[in-house]
């Protein structure tokens, strides 16, 4: 079927198609969506919140072992969407880079720098045939000393940029449409307080999934200027937010 270079081969390794596309990178994005999970990240004036679905298809799986939220350092968190084995690899790399930076320079790696370095790694896979792109979309969150709350998203193409609010996964586009309506104006990304940040993220997820969520189907991670450590909200606190959202609507 593959006739060497031409219409076939560019779909097998990351080389350019005649139209200038990298099909393998595009297929990596499809692999992420095929997992069927959506994540949302929202930045506020003094906090950043990431929310993801906790989907457990097999009743025999121990739910305590399922997570998509990872501490890269005490103060940098990552929400990853995509294939678990690839996510595990990315987490390991990110932790390694952060630790190396701390050892070499004597201070904690800034979120944007970590995100950019990870993006550079991902780019390598899109240029070398010997490895495939990782099927993992990563949202890094942290409170930067100089810039304040930060939310960065990395994708398999090696693209990385900061966001006021974003989404990853199967309902990415619908979520982004929802968020664009909520987070607008000059002050966008700098207006929400902690509660608004969390509730915007959770209500966005509920809206695009079209169903009311229970606290055990969600993971919510947060960093705030008061408490820079990345932590997950307990299910009681998530429940309070869910109730507040449903009363509001």
């Amino acid at each position, binding site marked *: 079927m593959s006739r060497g270079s031409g219409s076939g081969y560019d779909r097998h*390794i990351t080389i350019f198609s005649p139209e200038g596309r990298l099909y393998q990178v595009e297929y990596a994005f499809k692999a992420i969506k095929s997992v069927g999970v959506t994540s949302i990240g929202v930045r506020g004036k003094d906090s950043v919140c990431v929310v993801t679905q906790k989907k457990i298809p097999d009743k025999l799986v121990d739910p*305590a072992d399922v997570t998509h939220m990872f501490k890269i350092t005490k103060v940098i968190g990552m929400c990853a969407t995509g294939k678990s084995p690839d996510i595990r690899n990315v987490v390991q790399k990110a932790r390694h880079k952060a630790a190396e930076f701390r050892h070499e320079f004597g201070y904690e790696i800034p979120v944007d720098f970590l995100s950019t370095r990870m993006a550079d790694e991902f780019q390598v896979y899109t240029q070398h045939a*010997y*490895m495939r792109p990782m099927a993992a979309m990563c949202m890094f969150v942290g409170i930067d000393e100089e810039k304040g709350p930060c939310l960065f998203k990395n994708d398999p193409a090696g693209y990385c940029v900061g966001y006021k609010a974003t989404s990853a996964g199967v309902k990415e586009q619908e979520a982004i449409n929802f968020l664009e309506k909520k987070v607008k104006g000059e002050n966008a990304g700098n207006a929400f307080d902690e509660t608004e940040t969390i509730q915007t993220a959770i209500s966005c997820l509920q809206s695009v999934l079209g169903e009311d969520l229970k606290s055990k189907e969600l993971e919510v991670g947060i960093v705030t200027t008061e408490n820079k450590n990345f932590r997950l909200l307990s299910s009681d606190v998530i429940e309070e937010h869910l109730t507040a959202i449903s009363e509001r609507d």
Partner: protein
Amino acid sequence: MSGIGTGYDLSTTTYSPDGKVFQVDYAGKAVDNGGLALGIKCKDGVVLGVEKLLAFKMLVPGSNRRIAAVDRHAGMAGTGLAPDARAIVTRARQECAQYLSFYGDRIPAKILADRMAHYLHMFTLYWSVRPFGASTLLAVKDHELGYALYLLEPSGEVQRYFGTAVGKGRQAAKNEIEKLVKADAAGSLSCRDAVKHLARIVYSTHDEKDKAFECELSWICDQSGGEFRRVPKELAEEAITLAKAALEDDDMADA
């Protein structure tokens, strides 16, 4: 759609248009053709069982074991391509030994599972290697979790389970295990009972069309002193006798 993956399935470094890495999926199929391997986490330990399909009549019974200890406090049951399963066990043994040598303590369950996940995943990344055609069930005892059961798959997916099964007949086996786990919501299933259940499940899901088989049973539990051991001979024989009897009862009921 590309049907059975024509053209996109030749290399682990190729995604198909719908985002699958077919080589990894195919490695999973190699596992599906292997004998059943199953495990249950009980209140006082973890029990592993394997349906070892015997290809030849002249095989010495009890040889070519599919379940192996990886350290004193951990063991693995493998299915799929047997040599690949052995390679995974070898690596796990090296991880345990290295951790012990470096940190002076037995490797914790989460860390062993994580390291093995990374190792298996690595073989799904490079052109020059193929994924392992074997899945393994890992039973570990450690300070934090007590007893834990993990399933390690060729894709590098590693999950902790209350109970699970892989290989031929896994769907029927998983249904049985689910019933046990559900009924055992209080967490009171003991290893002794689980051994009997596992043997029963192995015998009842065994495909008649297949050749003869042996049922291997191992456990790590309070009764074994927290060490990964073969289930004691008397208990194993009792379990197998009960399993065979249950099968005959079923046959008689059907007839």
